[in-house]
């Protein structure tokens, strides 16, 4: 049982490590063509948005679209706070506070 599990974890670890490692190992310190640099510059906003958006407006199982999730309702003021303050601490803490409030009053239970 234990060895079965450890084997699974080891295999998972390897296939998780490879995509983390290959680009770094191959690309670090190499000059890329300008078009690739321009493309990679757009990857961070793309990834962040792709990570965030489904967490805000999809819910349930099976997944469905929903604009009235606590996550989305809290994300709107949190986004504005980030925009205004440009402070990670202020954004994270006020987001948490608003989410806690939303849980208490808007989405009890």
């Amino acid at each position, binding site marked *: 049982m234990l060895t079965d599990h450890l084997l699974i974890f080891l295999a998972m670890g390897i*296939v998780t490590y490879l995509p983390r490692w290959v680009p*770094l190992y191959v690309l*670090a310190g190499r000059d890329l063509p300008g078009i690739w640099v321009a493309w990679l510059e757009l990857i961070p906003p793309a990834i962040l948005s792709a990570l965030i958006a489904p967490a805000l407006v999809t819910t349930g199982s099976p997944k469905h679209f929903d604009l009235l999730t606590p996550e989305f309702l809290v994300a709107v003021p949190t986004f504005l706070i980030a925009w205004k303050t440009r402070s990670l601490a202020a*954004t994270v803490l006020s987001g*948490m506070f608003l989410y806690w409030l939303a*849980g208490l009053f808007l989405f009890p239970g």
Partner: protein
Amino acid sequence: MTALNSRSPSIHDPLSRIFEDGVRAAWPICLGYLPIGLAFGVIAQKGGLTPFEIGIMSLLVFAGSSQFIAVSMMGAGAGLPAIVMTTFMVNFRHFLMSSTMAAYLRGVKKTWLSLYAYGITDESFALNLTRFQEEPWDWKRAFVVNQTANIAWIGSTVLGGVGGTLLPAGAFGMDFALLGMFLCLLVFQLKGIFHGVTAFLSGVSAVAFSLLFGGNGHIVAASLLGATLGLALKKIFFRRKGGEKSC
């Protein structure tokens, strides 16, 4: 992002200072990992994993969502190939992050690069990238961020496996910590109109793909599509503009 204080960090600082800066920078990640790690520990323990196994899994894999999925697949009796294949697909998004991070890790020894690669997660990538872009930051401090997050992840998952959730559900809004951090880092990334267009296109397609296809492929697919369309629009726009100027 505002500098932590007036001193200007440098890669030649004593290790204690580098360590302190890295640990300090990692706080939103640690805060966010705690409820998720505890929840994972509880689920994994219910799924038949011992705290020791949970710790080994978190150490070897260090990728939250794939660990949740793997535990549920193990519970459903899935075999090793299916679990490993799913893990690979879920975690392939790190390929894009690693490609982007490479530009900031020039001159780092290959051994350290290989160790650094292990610590690339959604959270550490986003946090370190912003630091690299916005203020004096170096790979050593970034490495400390990665490893602080790693310790927080391993610790909280094992803790969940041993002691249960420990936190009341929804405590202090901690479940929102990582989303709040990502939102703020996204704002920092909106450096121009085409960054905004890219984020919008990527977000909309991520929602559409996740609803249409389920699974976790939507992150990679939407990021590739968003960045490519964003770049294409940028090229078209500047070509037009250039064309008008030359007329």
